C-alpha cells in the first residue's frame, strides 16, 4: 500500500499522463509518448526535463540505424512518487465522496 503524497511536479496534466504511461513500462520511445500525449517535441522535452531534474525520469539516447533514438523511463523514485500522487488524488476524491476512499 502506497502512502498518499501529493506531488506538485507530477500533478501537471502532461507530466501526470506521461508518468501514467511510463508506470507500466520499462521504457517508451520519445515519439510514442509525444504522439500519445498529443504535444510537440519541445513541449514534451520541457516536461521530461522537469521530471528528470526531479529525479523521476531518465532519458536514454542511442543511435540505431544511423538515427538518434531517445527512450524515456521512470526511475524507482519516480515510480514511488507517481504511485503516492495517485493515492493522494484518490484520497481527495474519497474524502469528498465518502465510501469511495
Amino acid at each position, binding site marked *: 500500500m502506497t502512502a498518499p503524497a*501529493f506531488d*506538485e511536479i507530477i*500533478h501537471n*496534466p502532461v507530466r*501526470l*499522463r*506521461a*508518468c*501514467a*504511461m*511510463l*508506470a*507500466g*513500462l*520499462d*521504457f*517508451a*520511445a520519445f*515519439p*510514442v509518448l509525444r504522439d*500519445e500525449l498529443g504535444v510537440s517535441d519541445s513541449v514534451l522535452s520541457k516536461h521530461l526535463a522537469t521530471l528528470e531534474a526531479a529525479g523521476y525520469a531518465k532519458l536514454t539516447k542511442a543511435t540505431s540505424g544511423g538515427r538518434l533514438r531517445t527512450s524515456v523511463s521512470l526511475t524507482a523514485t519516480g*515510480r514511488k512518487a507517481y504511485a503516492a500522487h*495517485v493515492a493522494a*488524488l*484518490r484520497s*481527495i*476524491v474519497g*474524502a*469528498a*465522496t465518502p465510501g469511495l476512499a
Partner: protein
Amino acid sequence: METDPLDAQAAVDAAAAAELRSAQIATSTPWYAPWYGITCAGFPVMFALLATDKMALETAVTMATIASLLALMFTYEHVTGVWPSIRGNRRHVAGILAVLIGAPTLSCLVASAYGVSWWLLAVAVVTAILLALMSRSYDAALVRKHAAR
C-alpha cells in the same frame, strides 16, 4: 496545495486512461505470442541435443533460437516503441519461467535416458503452445488490470 475533488477525479481518470493506453500499446502485437512460443520451443530441443552429443545440430538450433529471439525483441520494440515492465505481473512471469526451465530440464533428462526420438517433437509442440497461451494470457491480464481501474 488545495485540490478540488472534481479536479482530483479528472486527474485520476486521466492517469487511468493513460495507464490503459500504455497497456494497449504494449499488447498490440497479435503475432508476438505465437512467434515467442515457437522460438522458445527451441530450448527443450537444444538441451535434448546437447544431452545426446549431437553438437552440430545443437549449435544450429541454438543459433536459430537466439536469432529468432533477438529478431522478436527488435521487431517488438520497433513496432510498439515500448518495453513492458514485469513489475506487478510476477505470477505470470513465474509461470512462464517454470515452463522455460521445466521443458528443457525434462527433455535433457529424457534424452539422457532414452535418446532423441518422436517425444522431443511432442515436448517442443507442447512448450510452444503453452508459452504462446501464457503470453496471450499475460497480455489479457495486463489490459484487464488497467481497464478495471
